[in-house]
């Protein structure tokens, strides 16, 4: 059973490294790709981003970064919850 838990923990680590979420601003000007824990990987600006002021672009980019990082955190939590649920379900079956 402990071997199984270790393999699941290794899987959780792999999920943390691989989880990625994308957020795109309403007007499509800013696209952000991020991993869990605030790991911002890509900020992609389209041509219409440069029709905005610097202030506006900063605000929109901030919102997209928050959306992408929050979504990545949520997806990772969900994936880990599912992984651990499998472990506990298997343990319950073993006991019965």
């Amino acid at each position, binding site marked *: 059973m402990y071997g199984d838990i270790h393999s699941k923990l290794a899987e959780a680590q792999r999920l943390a490294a691989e989880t990625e979420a994308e957020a795109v601003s309403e007007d499509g000007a800013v696209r952000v790709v991020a991993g869990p824990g*605030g790991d*911002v990987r*890509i*900020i992609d*600006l389209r041509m219409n981003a440069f029709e905005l002021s*610097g202030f506006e672009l900063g605000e929109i980019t901030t919102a997209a*970064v928050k959306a992408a*990082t929050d979504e990545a955190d949520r997806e990772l939590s969900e994936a880990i919850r599912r992984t651990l649920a499998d472990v506990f379900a298997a343990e319950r079956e073993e006991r019965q």
Partner: protein
Amino acid sequence: MSDQQRPTPDQIMAEFERMRSEAEATLQRYEQVSAELGADAVEVVSEDGLLSVRLDANGKVDAIVINEGAMRHRQSIGPATVALIRRARDLYALKTAEMARRLVGDKIDVDAVLAQYLPKDGQGPGRTPR
């Protein structure tokens, strides 16, 4: 357990009081160190001063400020902002680690833990966690 071994209500209250005092002292120490290091307000500015990133007390991006002058460098704003966020997060990690070192450094080897996760010469994590 016999009645002689069982703690009296006064002893239980004294133990609670001791735990409460310890918790208050730890909290006070945390607030003091946090204020001293400015860990609740991490902000980094690009070398040219055109971009800045501020993190909140949890180390999450709170604000990205883009100066009008930066709008001339269209191709580089995205990658430069990503790099600046990374720098801000590294700084936050260092401040948080320094706080941990001061608060629990006698119990945990904070530097060893940190070495696993902080980039080494800008080339990603120092070593892969096992």
